[in-house]
């Protein structure tokens, strides 16, 4: 956006009044609400933000890696692969994430100690912590939603493109890597950006299984100091900033992917 267009959009009388009112509200909040708890929780809050970003990034990566075969199986796979992939997406999309999270942490987690070979394995120290379960639940959930998106994207790539690639003598893997996947990804990107913001909005749920991310920090402030609104307001601002950065990132990615495209 050019500087002139920003000026044209912002310096409209009603927008100036609204911005002034919003600034007034911010100043009022800064002066009359309690913020003296911030210095004490500063380090913890930074750790919380870091943990949130880390959970978000890793679960989106794992989820996406799972979603590619899920989408491909549904779009073009044989029936014995398409049906289970379809069922997985339906179950993930049809039940609340909170329930999935609790099923994995309390349900699956309570089964593990019954097996001696798990108790004696290298993984056991990790399985006794909460974050692997949180990561697994978030990744599976992302894979379920993304699998559905990618199914549509894989289907929307024209059959002519694949035929042309085959007639050029490309192998199956080369066709997928160089023709099919890039085109599907370009079409799926806008939805992918939206789903990533939804995934960010799902992360506070892991606080219910004792993973200390940014929401858990705010509820600890609430329990320690009995201050209710201020941590929640600050938390809303933090989530809005992260969501805004994610949206910007995906916009840049889309521009990069659309280079050289017509229309």
């Amino acid at each position: 956006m050019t500087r002139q267009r920003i000026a044209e959009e912002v310096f409209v009388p009603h927008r100036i009044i609204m911005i002034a009112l919003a600034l007034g509200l911010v100043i009022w909040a800064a002066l009359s609400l309690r913020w003296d708890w911030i210095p004490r929780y500063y380090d913890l809050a930074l750790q919380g933000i870091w943990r949130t970003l880390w959970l978000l990034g890793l679960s989106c990566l794992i989820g996406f890696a799972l979603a590619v075969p899920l989408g491909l199986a549904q779009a073009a796979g044989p029936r014995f692969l398409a049906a289970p992939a379809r069922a997985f997406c339906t179950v993930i999309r049809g039940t609340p994430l909170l329930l999935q999270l609790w099923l994995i942490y309390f349900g699956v987690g309570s089964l593990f100690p019954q097996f001696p070979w798990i108790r004696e394995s290298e993984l056991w120290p990790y399985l006794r912590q909460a974050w692997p379960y949180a990561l697994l639940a978030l990744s599976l959930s992302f894979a379920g939603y993304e699998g559905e998106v990618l199914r549509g994207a894989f289907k929307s790539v024209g059959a002519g493109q694949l035929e042309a690639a085959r007639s050029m003598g490309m192998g199956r893997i080369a066709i997928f890597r160089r023709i099919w996947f890039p085109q599907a990804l370009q079409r799926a990107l806008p939805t992918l950006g939206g789903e990533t913001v939804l995934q960010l909005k799902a992360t506070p749920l892991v606080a219910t299984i004792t993973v200390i991310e940014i929401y858990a920090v705010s509820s600890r402030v609430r329990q320690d100091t009995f201050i209710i609104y201020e941590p929640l307001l600050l938390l809303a601002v933090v989530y809005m900033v992260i969501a805004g950065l994610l949206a910007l990132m995906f916009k840049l990615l889309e521009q990069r992917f659309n280079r050289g495209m017509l229309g």
Partner: protein
Amino acid sequence: MDWLYALWPGLETTVGLLSLQPPGWGGNLLRGALASLQIALGAFALGLLIGTAGALGKLHGGPVTRDLLSVYTVVVRAVPELILILILYYAGTDLLNQALRALGQRPVEISGVVAGIAVLGIVQGAYATEVLRGAIQSVPRGQHEAARAYGMGAVQTFRRVTFPAMLPLALPGLSNLWLIATKDTALLAIVGFSELTLETRQAAGSTRAYFTFFLAAGALYLAMTLLSGRIFGWIEARYRRGQAAQ
């Protein structure tokens, strides 16, 4: 039944845990499912009301209305539902009671159902605003103009032309919103409202049969969402009658 129990050792205890009579917890789960359904229906209806008003405001309102509505939709879509629920749940009851005190009335206890419907309805309203706005925008302009030319007023145009024409376009988005509403009721478990998820956790915690109960609750949610998918599909087919296939 005895031969089945002999074949599958754990089945008898599972059936006992899920039975509807008091030693079993099936009744609690069903009551929770009913509470979830009630809140989801209320929130969806409230969301539709807010969404219709919001969409019309965004399309036909003045610049101030439009900017305020964008602030509403952007904030609700960027902040996690859980945080919004906590803010509205605490602040909403607090503000209402302060207002009542200022008017010289007694403070009221707000029931969980009302608070849940109000909070989830406000969240749903933001999404419904966008869905309905998109649907109204894709009704061809000529249809509005024709209605105007026949001398219909704004309300009549909306009721008899815009609404029926946009409904088939809005239905897929609305069915998605309904699914979000049913699943978002689970978040009320965190503020302590006893809907399906919280009932399940209590049943699981006191019997230590976590796996059984969470799977049973998952089946209940899945039944709700699959059934409503069918119903929405049926409504959509009904409203698309006589339209060219897309």
